[in-house]
């Protein structure tokens, strides 16, 4: 195959990664933005979403689409509820102290991960996609007959992958509408700007926090439900999304949602492309070091504006 079609394929795969990553990272970013805490257990919410998706899909009979739709509805709700519960029972009690929260969420990480290992087991299990038509992609060529399209062998994607990209975009628009156009979003933004003042105006800050933590967890779970027909559900699958989300949130500027989405697209696409040229381990080393150095020398992120 020529280079052009190859790059396009890498970018399509990258776009799927970027879509799921954007959902997961926006969840993390929302929690950091509003609550000013870092949730280290975020990757485990992602993992729980995938595992619950498998559980729901395998208990709902009928065509695969039915199980998938049920999983799409149930898994994020359940994980969101669990996250809100964790917020109310644990994070609230350490007063959202940044450092103690990190230690507590590391504890939650191990609890969720190990409980999954005890119940779900160490196997990786797939969920059947609701539809999976293979689509061949055209490529153009300047030949003797001028501009023409043709279908190179092996260049293709599946309808499901395109659906993942579309669904993630739709959810992100939904999050934006929620934050910018609804009363709940207004309360969240008010809490983010000034917690004390929000309290003084009678905003139930604790409930807002529980809700934000729940939405954050639900977004991660939603991303996982979308990806689980392509990857498989496994109890250790939370590590990579956590690391990548961290990278995205830091590059995008801590707490900035548009920056997070932009960084997710950038990282997702370049992840697809970089891993074509470098060994994945080397790519990860470089990405991790880059992020650490960004935090050291430009803590407001690459897209952030000035330090506050």
């Amino acid at each position, binding site marked *: 195959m020529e280079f052009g079609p190859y790059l396009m394929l890498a970018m399509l795969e990258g776009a799927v990664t970027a879509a799921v990553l954007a959902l997961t990272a926006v969840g993390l970013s929302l929690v950091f933005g509003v609550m000013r805490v870092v949730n280290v257990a975020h990757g485990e919410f992602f993992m729980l979403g995938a595992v619950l998706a498998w559980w729901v899909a395998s208990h709902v009979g009928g065509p695969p689409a039915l199980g998938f739709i049920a999983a799409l509805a149930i898994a994020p709700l359940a994980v969101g509820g669990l996250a809100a519960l964790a917020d109310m029972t644990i994070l609230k009690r350490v007063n959202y102290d940044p450092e103690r929260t990190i230690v507590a969420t590391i*504890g939650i990480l191990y609890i969720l991960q190990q409980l999954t290992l005890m119940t779900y087991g160490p196997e990786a299990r797939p969920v059947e996609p609701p539809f999976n038509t293979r689509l061949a992609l055209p490529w153009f060529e300047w030949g003797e007959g001028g501009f023409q399209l043709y279908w190179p062998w092996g260049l293709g994607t599946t309808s499901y992958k395109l659906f993942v990209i579309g669904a993630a975009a739709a959810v992100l628009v939904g999050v934006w509408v929620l934050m910018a156009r609804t009363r709940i979003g207004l309360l969240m933004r008010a809490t983010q700007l000034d917690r004390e003042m929000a309290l003084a105006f009678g905003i139930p800050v604790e409930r807002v926090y529980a809700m934000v933590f729940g939405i954050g967890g639900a977004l991660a779970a939603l991303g996982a439900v979308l990806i689980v027909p392509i990857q498989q559900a496994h109890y250790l699958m939370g590590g990579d999304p956590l690391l990548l989300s961290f990278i995205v949130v830091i590059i995008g500027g801590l707490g900035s949602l548009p920056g997070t989405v932009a960084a997710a697209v950038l990282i997702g696409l370049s992840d697809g492309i970089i891993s074509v040229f470098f060994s994945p*381990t080397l790519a990860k080393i470089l990405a991790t070091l880059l992020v650490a150095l960004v935090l050291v020398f430009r803590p407001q992120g690459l897209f952030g504006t000035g330090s506050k």
Partner: protein
Amino acid sequence: MSDRSKTFALHGGVLALLFALQFVLPAYHHGNLARIMVLASFAVGYNVMFGYTGLLSLGHALFFAAGMYGMGLAVHYGGAGPVVALLAGLVAAIAVSLLVGLLALRTAGVGFMIVTLMFAQAGYLTVLYFTTYTRGDEGLVLQQAQRMLGSLDLSQPGPRYFAALGLFAVCMLAVLWMVRAPFGKVLIAIRENEERARMLGYDVFRYKLAAVVISGTICGLAGAAYGLLFGYVGATFASVQYSIFPLLWVLLGGAGTVLGPFIGALFMFYLIDLSSSVTSAYMLVAGVALVLLTLFAPQGLVGELRERVWRWLP
């Protein structure tokens, strides 16, 4: 008795007890205790930063592994003896901690935690990337002949226990001396109120950097000793888990106490040891312990003891 003599009586007593225990313990617990003392030295190093300077690092596996690999590679490829190899491990740990300190100390709080976590992750991946030399997850096994310190065979339980006790005593007494010296008081002042320490004219950055290097050196020494005493150098020791463990031990035992790291390591080691005989998900214990500790006993065991009974405890 003055506070000073009480302090020396208590810590000397603990060391004497550990010395005496080797003659009475059954083989299994004898081996465990040697391991715990090396791990406790790791925790003692971690405590210098977390407990006394107030710097919460999530990347101490990097220092442990730097010492361990500095030692292991020197033995495996350089044919070095234990003393030279330990020195190589120390040099590696000092270099790495100096570099990490210079960069990471530009951030504070949550930023510092994430940066140290990222550096440690990069270190872990580097170990995996150079699998040809480090053998990755499989690790390097040091032969008995490579672990002879003069006529002492460090692979034998007796000398091993003795070496572990020596290491732990050196680390603990060094930290005890440090926190009683003016230098340690400045670190505590920085932990309590960094701005005020700066106002008093202390170069806070330098003190913090010194704390990072001291902490990294002790952890590196523990890592090198662990590899030497137990004959194995593997990538697991560079993974996130080994950054979380010292935090857990110190939190459980009591941050900012000299004996806390040992008590924490002792409890957690046996807790995990007991639960791993029941289930493979033994890290569940670590998770539950972390959550319960942050909720109910942020001072840790020895810290609570100091709060309630022995106010003079260093």
